[in-house]
């Protein structure tokens, strides 16, 4: 019942929002179309504003990843994570997670193709993918939208959150699926 409920929510959430908000606006005598256009206008300027920030960050991340530097670090940390109960196959995914959303989705997809979604590796990769965020991307985009370049301690907070999400994923998958 729980999965079908989740499925229903994920299928209905957006249509319902698109239905309810305008209807509510109409009931409150809002000029709905005019209000929509007025709000939508901001979308364009914000999208353009984040381009330089994202170019800068993605170039650095992509060079770091393509050169093999990411693999070096992930190989260096391998013994530690294996001791926590993670198969070595998922480690690149763990290190890629805060850096690149599309990269990590590609890796998770690859792992599921190779090992199957219902294998331990497939389940762990899914849990890791679902429970952590592309911290660098989020910070770049959100701070970029307002022109903030000094992030203070938020990078460290974000990375600590990622690492703890990662360790928690490894732990819970070992408990549930091993």
């Amino acid at each position, binding site marked *: 019942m729980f999965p079908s409920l989740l499925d229903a929510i994920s299928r209905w959430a957006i249509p319902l929002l698109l239905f309810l908000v305008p209807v509510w606006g109409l009931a409150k005598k809002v000029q709905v179309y005019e209000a929509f256009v007025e709000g939508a206008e901001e979308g364009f300027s914000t999208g353009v504003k984040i381009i330089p920030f994202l170019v800068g960050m993605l170039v650095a991340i992509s060079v770091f990843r393509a*050169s093999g530097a990411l693999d070096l670090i992930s190989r260096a940390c391998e013994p530690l994570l294996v001791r926590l109960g993670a198969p070595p196959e998922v480690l690149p995914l763990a290190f890629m997670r805060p850096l690149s959303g599309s990269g990590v989705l590609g890796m998770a997809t690859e792992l599921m193709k190779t090992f199957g979604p*219902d294998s331990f590796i497939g389940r762990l990769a899914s849990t890791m993918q679902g*429970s952590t965020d592309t911290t660098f991307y*989020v910070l770049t985009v959100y701070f970029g939208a307002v022109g*903030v370049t000094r992030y203070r301690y938020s990078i460290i907070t974000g990375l600590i*959150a990622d690492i703890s999400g990662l360790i928690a994923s490894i732990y819970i998958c070992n408990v549930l699926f091993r």
Partner: protein
Amino acid sequence: MLNYIWLALLLSGILVAAVNGNIEVVTQAALKSANDAVDICINLIGVMCLWLGIMRIGEKAGLVESLSRVVRPVMTRLFPSIPPDHPALGAIIMNLSANILGLGSAATPFGMKAMQEMQKLNGGRNEASEAMCTFLALNTSCVTLIPATIIAVRVNYNSANPTEIVGATIFATCCSMTLAVLVDYLFRRAHRRAS
């Protein structure tokens, strides 16, 4: 600090490529990702227009305001530097709800709106405010009830039970969210004491 991280990523990448003898991947990766970044932003624009438009209707109809009134007790504690009636709180709530429901496309526009409102309170400085740091700590560690993307991938590879990982995901995000809020709180206190 970002300056150093950025430099470290870029320089170590170039050095490793040079040592490995495949320096041409640097050129390739740099040019391709610069292109990709623009694609991502351009692709974001349509969805952002959509959700910011819907949100403006919600604002004018008083929906966003009533939503923020409901969660005000929690929000004022998490964001003591934002006045309780400020529109930033409404946008933060919308962003976190979208995150929890796994509506990634809606989460980003609401989050940017929240950042813009907080930047008004921050006086347009180029340094992150405390409220921004707390918001991003919550945002990057947020509980997701429906990790829609990964469920779709699992369905695609014929998983016998695509949603069986949801419980595990919720557990893991609860851990990381609790820790993120705690770490953010400690940092905030330490920074205040230092200044």
